[in-house]
């Protein structure tokens, strides 16, 4: 007798993941509904407000895009490391480091013309993110220290440094005693596109395309993915794992630093300890949902931008904006579960030759990031 058996694919296919993402959104909205209901709000009213404020009209859409920009950049940052199985949990801190160095440059070169100053600040941002990543990257490539913990620890360091700069060395003398850093020069504001959206969005989009091409279409990208999925094969093929780990992590840090500079020149106007605003952490969810693919990062970042704008807007209804954090976390959980469930397929096996005639299972992916410490 032939009987059906549930078999599972090892790797999640992009189409499956797209569907899982939708399921995640629905599951999150369902949980949110329960939370809102039990705390005495009208879920329909809240969700309608969220939807309207994120999508209806150019102004709403521009706000969503404004939020999606740093999310896409931090998402890409995490995804670049993730495409070789590494986890950059500290994009939040690298973003801050980028903004710190960019602010420093703006202070020293405030006489420069706009485009030149912006270009300098962006380069400075990239450098800042890379500097904060240097320690974790070297420790990971040469000593196999878990980059998960080291990158995360440096988030707290970067934020504390900003707090220190605010109260001490960079305190704005014209701030009437408030502990704030002076705003970046006017000419350093990124040109706007429409509404609140600015050029930063195009920078993010361009970078996503560049990395999509680099990772999926070049030998460099192939080696990167190979080094992540089968380190032994990569080593045999003459790929230096150490250098690949270093490059991937430093690039990851640099992109997060760039996100800091873009946020500084695009939306924030001045460096403060709230500049990174959780974008770096949300970027982890974005990249995980996108299966570390740049194309997916763009889509997920847009949706998360909308969720965050929506979360802000419902505060006027007396609903805590923490709802949007919960929704983001739940989307990831829901999608994770859905992807696993969808990944089962029915396989028919006969009684005698039980495991013959199987399609070759795709090899399990060994993760180099796991052999920490």
């Amino acid at each position, binding site marked *: 007798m032939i009987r059906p*058996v549930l078999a599972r694919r090892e790797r999640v296919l992009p189409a499956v993941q797209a569907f899982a993402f939708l399921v995640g959104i629905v599951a999150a909205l369902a949980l949110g509904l329960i939370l809102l209901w039990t705390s005495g709000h009208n879920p329909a009213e809240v969700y309608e407000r969220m939807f309207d404020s994120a999508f209806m009209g150019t102004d709403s859409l521009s706000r969503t895009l404004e939020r999606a920009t740093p999310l896409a950049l931090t998402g890409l940052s995490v995804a670049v490391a993730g495409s070789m199985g590494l986890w950059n*949990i500290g994009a939040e801190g690298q973003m801050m480091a980028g903004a710190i160095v960019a602010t420093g440059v703006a202070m020293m070169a405030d006489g420069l013309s706009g485009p030149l100053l912006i270009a300098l600040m962006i380069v400075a941002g990239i450098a800042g993110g890379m500097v904060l990543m240097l320690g974790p990257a070297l420790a990971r490539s040469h000593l196999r220290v878990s980059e998960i913990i080291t990158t995360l620890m440096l988030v707290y360091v970067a934020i504390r440094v900003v707090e220190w700069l605010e*109260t*001490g060395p960079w305190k704005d003398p014209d701030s009437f005693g408030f502990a704030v850093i002076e705003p970046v020069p006017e000419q350093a504001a990124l040109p706007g596109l429409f509404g609140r959206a600015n050029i930063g969005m195009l920078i993010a989009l361009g970078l996503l395309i560049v990395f999509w091409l680099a990772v999926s279409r070049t030998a460099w990208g192939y080696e990167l993915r190979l080094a992540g999925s089968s380190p032994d094969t990569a080593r045999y093929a003459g790929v230096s794992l150490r250098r690949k780990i270093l490059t991937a992590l430093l690039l990851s840090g640099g992109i997060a630093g760039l996100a800091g500079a873009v946020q500084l020149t695009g939306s924030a106007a001045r460096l403060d300890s709230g500049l990174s605003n959780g974008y770096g952490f949300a970027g982890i*969810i974005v990249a995980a949902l996108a299966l570390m693919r740049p194309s997916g990062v763009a889509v997920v970042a847009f949706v998360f931008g909308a969720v965050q704008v929506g979360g802000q807007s419902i505060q006027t209804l007396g609903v805590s904006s923490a709802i*949007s954090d919960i929704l983001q976390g739940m989307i990831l959980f829901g999608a*994770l579960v859905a992807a696993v469930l969808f990944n089962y397929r029915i396989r028919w096996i006969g009684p005698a030759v039980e495991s013959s005639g199987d399609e070759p299972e795709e090899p399990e992916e060994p993760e180099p990031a*796991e052999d920490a410490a």
Partner: protein
Amino acid sequence: MSEAALIGLFVATVQFGTLVFLAALGELIAERAGVLNLGVEGMMAMGAVSGFMVGLETGSPWAAFFAAAAVGALVGGLHALVSVVLGADQVVSGLALTIGGLGLAAYVGRNVVGERPETLFTDLGIAGLADIPWIGEIFFDQPPVVYLTVLLGLAVWFVLARTRLGLAVRAAGESAPTTDTAGHSVMALRSGAVMVGGAFAGAAGSFLSLYMAPGWVEGMVAGRGWIAVALVIFGAWRPGRLALGALLFGFTLALQPRLQSFDIELLGVEVNRISPALLGILPFVLTVAVLVIISWRYRHRPSPAPAALGLPYRREER
């Protein structure tokens, strides 16, 4: 620096040490069973807020402590369901737990910010011993959670090292197929370990909100959950070394807010003139430094980590 200040420093060292030890002990159990749980920060936040709310409601710190443990176990159960039962990526699931848990804690606790429960844990002067100068105050006049945590540490060591259950748990962390063949359910062992670990983290959270910093504010766990994750590596996955590491980190966490008041000079810099924000980076820099040193020591030797740590196990279909 006065004698009282010095004693205060060591008293706080024991308390901070207890806080991170309890959470790290839970993570150790999960990791010995082969499950990496990066959700400690989220589980602690959930424990802190739920413990605090139960404390407000009941006035009993013990009810709060055990409620927080139950909530921690429940949140850990979510990680077990997703990463052990369904076999999803442990890193992603754990991070989702931290991010979602912090968000949920902030939402649940939004109305109790600034409140103070009537009864908190009180220090337990152990008769006779508490009166010994120095030692008495530091070790024998602490809240009961401190002693409970010491007992839990001993219990975890005993169960892992000396019992059949502990052997099975460790086997699940070293080689899941072997454990399976030996007739144990890897899924049950791992899920159980993750949930017990979650209970420890949740309980640690309530120690924070009901004793160390009474009250609830968003972000009050402030990275201690992550330090607990790092501590497990520092402790080489052994409860004894974990305790030593916890005291070291406890000392740093206790020292940092006090450095301001110390009139000492370090490398030509007067410590009390350094900004508190800069001193705040101390525990985190120490964590990174310690991890690097540990890895340096193991650079030519196999890592002491459980061999199957982070690898999902699925029984082949038959």
